[in-house]
């Protein structure tokens, strides 16, 4: 009986701990909803999602998958990456609605546009 009681106690403890953790996660979710994110891969000298529509507050991350460096430069000067070598990333959070055209300053035939609307 003693051993059975201990096992039961352990199981109850695990269940209680799990419930507690779930409660914590739920609290975290209420406090800070997961940030909206989107990604654009640069490959074969193109932005692979040349047109992208996101909600305000979304962070867009560009990743260069080419063997050649590229940049991400807003046409209106809103954002500007450093040179992105292979595997390098650049992120920008779009706080406000609008249309944001961009290009690669090394290879300006590479263009894209991010549309931000609620």
């Amino acid at each position, binding site marked *: 009986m003693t051993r059975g009681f201990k096992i039961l106690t352990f199981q109850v403890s695990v269940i209680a701990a799990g419930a507690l953790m779930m409660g914590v996660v739920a609290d975290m979710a209420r406090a800070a909803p997961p940030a909206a994110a989107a990604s654009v891969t640069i490959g074969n000298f193109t932005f692979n999602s040349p047109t992208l529509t996101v909600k305000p507050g979304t962070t867009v991350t560009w990743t260069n998958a080419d063997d050649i460096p590229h940049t991400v430069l807003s046409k209106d000067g809103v954002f500007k990456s450093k040179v992105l070598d292979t595997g390098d990333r650049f992120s920008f959070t779009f706080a406000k609605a609008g249309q944001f055209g961009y290009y690669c300053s090394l290879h300006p*035939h590479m263009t894209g546009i991010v549309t931000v609307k609620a």
Partner: protein
Amino acid sequence: MFDDLDGDRRGFLKCMAWAGTGALFAFQGGIGSSIGLDAALAAPARHASVQPFTFAQISDSHIGFNKPPNADARATFREAIAKVKALPNRPDFVIHTGDVSQLSRDEEFDDAEQMLKELGLPVFFVPGEHDMLDPDGGKAFLNRFGKGTQGAGWYSFDHRGVHFVALVNVADLKPGGMGNLGAAQLAWLKADLAGRSSSTPIVVFAHIPLWTVYADWGWGTDDSAEALKLLARFGSVTVLNGHIHQITQKIEGKIAFHTARSTAFPQPAPGSAPSPGPLKVPSEQLHSMLGITDAQFVRGHDRIALIDSTLSA
């Protein structure tokens, strides 16, 4: 401001010198002909009665590039320099048609400069888009290789009756566009050419081709037609470019165009691959696609032949 190669100017020109794809150009009596490095190496020394001059072109050294198909672009650049040094007819100078570096890092520029010093020749540079990547958008390149130049790095000089014009078409590029010269440089070019005899042989060099090789990959210069219009009255015009890492050539009117190979890695023929990224050739093929290859163009009474040679020869 570079009227000749004599005197104090020579020191300046050494700073400006550039070496292209290893093509060798020979001017005889105002008529240009060019021979590749391999042919030049094989040829007996010229008779002293002829006083030709030669210069060499090196392009797209991409110092710092270390991915397939070339793990060490420094090594292949050193080989190209050794090839120029081994010429029986010593070139008067070398031109480098841009993309000296891969990422505009100081150590890349420094290594290129140190290796080029081994030539003991003046080198004239124009920047490629890879040389504009420092935080100040090209100042690192200009401070090292473009002292005394105009604007983003353009200039001209005369040598033995030939007028050389170095143009920059990698600055301030426009979204959706290709190479760009810009109004300020075109105004300078107009003034630079004004008053020169139409019989003066002209050599123009710039990084991106000054004609549209392939618009889908941005292989051209948006406002090059305005520059070519200014050059149209001259009897002999040779345009030397890099950027596309392969030999292409074309003759239009009195203007002969030629692009040089890279010393770092080849790129695909226009439209033959999904992108213009490095052509990942097997290592045993690499040297045959770098350096210089045979290239000749003949135009009217003036003849400028370019014979490029490869690093495998």
